[in-house]
């Protein structure tokens, strides 16, 4: 589980490998470790398309799990891995709303709750 900043970001500096998380992330994916991205922000939705570094992370194989809370995603990932180890299936199950852990719409008053 990675609890990224904002939309779900980590450092991916292309020219400063020492500071970049990307090599480690790629190595993890190569070794079939499921990588799931949530956000440190309490409210709102992760998004792998707005900024370049998130696009790079998604392309590397990180699964962005919409607006799931980190703690919930952690428990869910444990449950999913208990059923399958196939990366495609892990992604698909993590992105399927099973018990209301993912909401398709973020409402205006979400922040007021």
């Amino acid at each position, binding site marked *: 589980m990675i609890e990224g900043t904002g*939309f779900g970001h980590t450092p991916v500096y292309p020219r400063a490998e020492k500071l970049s998380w990307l090599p480690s992330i790629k190595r993890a994916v190569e070794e079939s470790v499921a990588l799931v991205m949530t956000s440190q922000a309490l409210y*709102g*939705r992760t*998004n792998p*398309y*707005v900024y370049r570094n998130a*696009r790079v992370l998604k392309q590397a194989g990180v699964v962005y799990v919409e607006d799931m809370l980190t703690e919930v995603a952690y428990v869910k990932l444990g449950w999913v891995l208990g059923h399958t180890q196939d990366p495609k299936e892990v992604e698909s199950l993590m992105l399927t709303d099973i018990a209301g852990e993912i909401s*398709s*719409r*973020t*409402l*205006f*008053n*979400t922040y007021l709750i």
Partner: protein
Amino acid sequence: MRDKSFYRSIGLKCGLEIHQRLKGGKLFCSCRSTLSEEPSLEIIRKLRAVYGELGVVDRAAAFEHMRNRKFVYKYYPSESCLVECDEEPPHQVNKEALEAAITAALMLNAKVVDEIHVMRKTVIDGSNTSGFQRTMVIALDGYLEYKGEKIPIAQVCLEEEACGILEDWGDTVVYRLDRLGIPLVEVSTGLLEGYSPEEIQEIALLIGVTLRSTGKVRRGLGSTRQDLNVSISGGSRVEIKGVQELELISKVVENEVERQLSLIKLAKELKEAGVREEDFKPPMEVTELFSETKNRVIKRALKSGGVVFAAALPGLSGFASRELCPGLTLGKELAYHARAYGVGGIIHSDEDLAKLKLEDEFKKLRELLKAGSRDLIFIVAGPPDRAAEASRAVVERAKQLLNGPPEETRAANPDGTTRFTRPLPGAARMYPETDIPPMPIPREYVESIRASLPEHWEQKVKRFTEQLGLPRDLARQVVWSEYLSLFEEAVEKTRLPPTLIASTLVSTLKDIKRRDKIPVEQLPDEKIMEALLAVDGGKISKEALPDVLRELAKSPGETVQAIAARLGIKPITLEELREIISSTIQDNMEVVLEKRERALGLIMGRVMAKVKGRIDGKVVSEEVKRKLKEVLSTSRVEA
């Protein structure tokens, strides 16, 4: 009447953009698009023009920024989310809408692109919370056949609907967020040359029926909208936005041609009269002159801190009342330019100044402005910055009269006239939507859609005639109507005669609208279907259908059952009918015995009065005849 050769001779060129809302949810989020809710919150915003990626400020954006308007957005809890508020990035493109757009593109013989790029189109009137509208080219280079010729379809786009406007108070505009993001297909024709306004309208109708034949489009008020580009030789390209009805297109084109011709003629007249650009002087503030005014409008403006600006327009005296096209005088045209800056309009010297109680002030004004008797004088009253800008805009517009019609964006009025809204936006209006990656469109996907394309509308007419037994005219009416997909659904789901369904949808509903002035187009498909199913299930008779539909249109919240009960049109069974007939004959036995067979009309009338709308009239007639015969034959024996 102007004929086709006239429009050819003046070089009429026209481009059509047809917008059609699609069924299903929103384009970039998971909200409903039913437009059926009450708002729960409002959000207030302002727009600010900034330099674009190319280092220039869009002309239209600068204009809007200058107007400094406040935008209020009404928020609907199930029909808007943070995407509509522009507080969350767009989600991925709605797959259902994408498929509908590709279907439409293929029906229009267009070539689907290999990769879809979502673009942002600058929109600065506040109708998009983001300041742009998202649009994507789906297909290019198609055609439609019309009178044996190929009408070019330049492009088919999929885009998001803007907010609906609820109120416009000049400095504040109220929008509804629920409409924002509804998917639309936009079909743009190539330049149509050599066609008359009626033919241009027919081409628009043809595109409309082609889109509806996909079965994936919405119907009802606001579900289609047309933009037109119109130009003539010696005129200018004018974009006319928001023609609500396809049937209004020919009138709008005719009016625009007339307007441009009048402006060309006026330019010539002014030049011949020796009017020159340098004769136009900027407006002056003349508030002082009106401090004692008896004119109520100006008095009110001054009381709330307003000012008055005035200017003389050389050589234009007497021209302000001239009609540029039916319903649009030059005075009104100039006033639109003032109104674009958020003031009420202008008052000019061609008006009845005595009635306006402004005779004295205008006399003094004429001296103050050193204006001659051939000059038109006008004033603008309002808040200081707006009155200054508005009066300057009027002078600028008047100056342009020397050069004929300018390029501009206009909006269509419901009566087929148009009004100035803003100068044509600059060219740098489109730029990539960076929040959505490009989407490759696999060929197999396109081919799978092509393999199961819906029927062409002409095939539908043929099938409805041959297989469903509709008269040809009725079949064509249904296919060309907004109710096509509802008709097909009702034929499939009920055992009602297709002719009954068709005539209900294309003529009964229209009658209700015309006779009772009820906005029957707002009645949702599901409610009409509910009424048809009630007839099919014997819950109401087909005679009662018009009454039920009328009541439903008045209160769509009610169920068909409740309405039937309220109207007392519970259907009766055959047994009940027979009982009513027997007792009616019994009650009128004397007449029956006297008039014998000729009593049929009387009995029929009395029975119908009791059962009207509750059972098929044909059944009543048969039953009355049978029973009467039976009664008469036994009575003869008795006699």
